[in-house]
């Protein structure tokens, strides 16, 4: 459980980091919280020649509200999300989600940017980002671009983030007041990935669903957006039947791999169950 040798770099500015990334190209890996990469390196599954530690770049930290959007530095840790008064008031879904990630020590180190750019379908932030309509700021030496979460996750460990790019910020439009929300996650124990999880945001008008977004964690090649399920709910009253139907539609897009958490059938069923629970809780939290 000892990593292979590598060179270590700790830039203090984004341009420096980009410069190093350019210089070492394929040989380089970005180090955020390190709780995915370092264990991988200790098992010698990963052996980058150069580690670029983003930990000393101040601009990558912090949570603020600007122009109707929450702007979260990519190196903001899970515990910082959990403890943010701003997020507790304006975006409690993110807080609820972060609380379900791994364990306390890991949440001190683990970062939202790392969680998202790792592209691991078992990570929890991608689903939260999709239902929150987030977008990501990606910086390269050639300039910066802002890409929506929708379409960012193209496969396992594969995102739109290009070699030579660094995710610097996450932007989340402040959810309309009264938006219902829930992240419902089934896991075997603290520190485990989701067997299946569902993220939901919901706006109700009276008993009618005005807007709804549903995303699923760890039941596909990457995070899944349950479009058909959303469509089946939008504009209609929400009741046990419509919730069950939405869950059925969500399950249809699942393609999980069997592992010690369960077989594909179980995980798919749990995606449906988590969808139902998330929808019910979101409804109870939404103002009519």
């Amino acid at each position, binding site marked *: 459980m000892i990593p292979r040798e590598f*060179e270590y770099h*700790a830039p203090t500015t984004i341009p420096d980091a980009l410069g190093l990334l350019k210089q070492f190209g394929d040989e380089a890996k970005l180090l955020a919280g*390190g*709780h995915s990469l370092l*264990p991988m390196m200790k098992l010698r599954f990963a052996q980058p020649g150069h580690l670029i530690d983003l930990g000393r770049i101040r601009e990558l930290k912090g949570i603020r509200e600007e122009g109707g959007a929450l702007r979260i530095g990519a190196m903001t840790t899970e515990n910082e999300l959990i403890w943010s008064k701003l997020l507790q008031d304006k975006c409690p879904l993110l807080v609820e989600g972060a609380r379900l990630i*791994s364990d306390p020590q*890991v949440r001190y180190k683990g970062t939202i940017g790392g969680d998202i750019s790792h592209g691991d379908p078992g990570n929890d932030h991608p689903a939260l980002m999709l239902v929150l309509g987030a977008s990501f700021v990606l910086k390269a030496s050639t300039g910066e671009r802002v890409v929506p979460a929708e379409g960012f996750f193209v496969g396992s460990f594969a995102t739109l983030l290009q070699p030579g790019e660094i995710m610097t910020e996450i932007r989340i439009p402040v959810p309309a007041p009264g938006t219902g929300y829930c992240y419902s996650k089934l896991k075997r124990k603290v520190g485990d990935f989701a067997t299946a999880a569902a993220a939901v945001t919901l706006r109700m008008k009276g008993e009618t669903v005005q807007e709804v977004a549903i995303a699923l964690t760890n039941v596909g090649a990457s995070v899944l957006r349950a479009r058909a399920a959303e469509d089946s709910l939008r504009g209609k009253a929400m009741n046990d039947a419509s919730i069950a139907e939405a869950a059925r539609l969500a399950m249809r897009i699942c393609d999980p791999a069997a592992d010690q958490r369960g077989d594909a059938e179980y995980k798919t069923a749990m995606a449906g169950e988590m969808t139902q629970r998330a929808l019910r809780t979101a409804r109870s939290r939404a103002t009519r």
Partner: protein
Amino acid sequence: MARKHAVSFKLNGKAVDVVVEPRELLIHSLREKLQHTGPHIGCETSHCGACTVDLNGMSVKSCTVLTVQCQDAEVLTIEGFEQSGALHALQEGFTQEHGLQCGYCTPGMITRAYRLLKENPSPSEEEIRYWMAGNLCRCTGYQNIVKAVQYAAKKMSSSRT
């Protein structure tokens, strides 16, 4: 052989320097170069928390931190808890409430609980269980560990007022 780095940081308030390969893990520097064998190695995949130390005000698993990341850092380990012969309330609590048996998880437990009580001086049993869940214990079943943390919380709050 990768270029070695000289790393300086504060360990339990004292300035220390180590020369390490970039790949050297903090737990190994502490245990083997700095003779601080309080933090232990239990799993190496950052699940068990036996290697927990306090790093710049965060509880971290030092088996998943590179020593080179600790330049200028403040590191607190179990060895730093006893002040001029006086035990920390947590050390006292773990003894009084029988919060340890084999003692292997204890340094990590106490170090983690220290940060928890800084952030939440009077946690409920549920909060203690939730915020201590990054530390595994095979002996106690946690019940007396919860009591030990409550003991310390009580003692610290009374000494504050």
